[in-house]
């Protein structure tokens, strides 16, 4: 951690970071979050999806929140289109991560379709925390590779384990899904606007549950986001400044999941 003397070509204030340190940070995130694929495997199997379906989700979707949302909606009896819509909207944030990453990583066009599958919360957090392009590329690749490999392996183990366990509810495993969501959500609740959006979404999501078809209340709850933005601009509190490059949380190490905040900056009021 502490390198007071830069012997080789390193500049004094750590503009360059040793490759080993980047790899260590990346593996820390990749392993910790990769292991939680187990929770997904168990949850998915407990929701009634088969082994092949569960593993296909981790292999092809590979963005945790969307996967949990999809199996939750299907378990609640939602139709496949509303279930997929909810999962898709949760995945939209990855497009904004991609915008940042493509500038940082400067990937050749041919590589982008491959790299795209790894554009998620954790790889973005680690990559944005790196000081140089070389470090960013190493961080992205190591986080992506370790997380993808482990997430899929633990998904398989979790799904197999759930079949062996039998009643996943008796083991409290139906609480894993909401706990994952809460852990993703918590670091995003930085300003009054975000808390208002969360509060309104909870009210809409629960209030409409008895009257709308399964899966639909969550989509309606998503309207809390544009509503809050309208209310915000009405009040005149502009958020243009919005720190164009506020990285989503500098410490890739902690806050293992979603750094969410493309809105990194607070509009201080």
């Amino acid at each position, binding site marked *: 951690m502490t390198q007071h003397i830069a012997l080789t070509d390193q500049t004094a204030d750590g503009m360059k970071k040793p490759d080993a340190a980047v790899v260590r940070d990346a593996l820390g995130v990749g392993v910790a979050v990769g292991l939680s694929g187990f929770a997904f495997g168990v949850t998915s199997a407990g929701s009634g999806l088969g082994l092949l*379906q569960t593993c296909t989700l981790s292999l092809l979707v590979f963005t945790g929140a969307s996967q949990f949302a999809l199996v939750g909606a299907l378990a609640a009896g939602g139709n496949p289109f509303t279930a997929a819509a909810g999962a898709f909207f949760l995945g939209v944030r990855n497009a904004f991560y991609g915008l940042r990453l493509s500038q940082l990583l400067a990937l050749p066009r041919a590589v982008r379709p491959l790299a795209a599958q790894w554009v998620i919360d954790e790889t973005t957090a680690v990559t944005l925390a790196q000081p140089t392009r070389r470090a960013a590329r190493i961080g992205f690749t190591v986080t992506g590779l370790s997380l993808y490999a482990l997430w899929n392996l633990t998904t398989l183990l979790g799904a197999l384990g759930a079949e062996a366990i039998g009643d996943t509810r008796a083991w409290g495993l139906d609480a894993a899904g909401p706990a994952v969501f809460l852990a993703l959500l918590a670091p995003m609740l930085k300003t009054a606007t975000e808390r208002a959006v969360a509060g309104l979404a909870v009210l809409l999501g629960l209030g409409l549950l008895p009257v709308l078809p399964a899966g639909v209340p969550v989509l309606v709850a998503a309207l809390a986001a544009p509503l809050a933005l309208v209310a915000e601009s009405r009040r005149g509190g502009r958020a243009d400044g919005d720190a164009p490059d506020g990285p989503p949380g500098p410490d890739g190490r902690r806050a293992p999941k979603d750094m*969410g905040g493309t809105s990194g900056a607070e509009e201080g009021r």
Partner: protein
Amino acid sequence: MNIWIAIIGTAVGCYAVKLAGLLVPAHAVERPYVRRLAALLPVALLAALTAQQTFADGHALMLDARAAGLGAAAVALLLRAPFLLVVAAAVVVTAGLRAIGG
């Protein structure tokens, strides 16, 4: 079959937005309003999902051991526990309560 439709739809959609982010020129979408909306959408969705999966039983609302599990997860988050520990806290407390009370 329905489940496969949902899986393939989600996979295609999620991959498409990931790839779009890498391919689209940044200035095309980097407007403040769009960025804010993209940051707030997951907040709304995750909050609604957390609440539903904790309190919903089909179309009815109910308070059961899951709520205590989520409370434990919240405490773990406040204590800055690592991700896996947060999830484990929710699972253990929920299972424990069910073992005691059924």
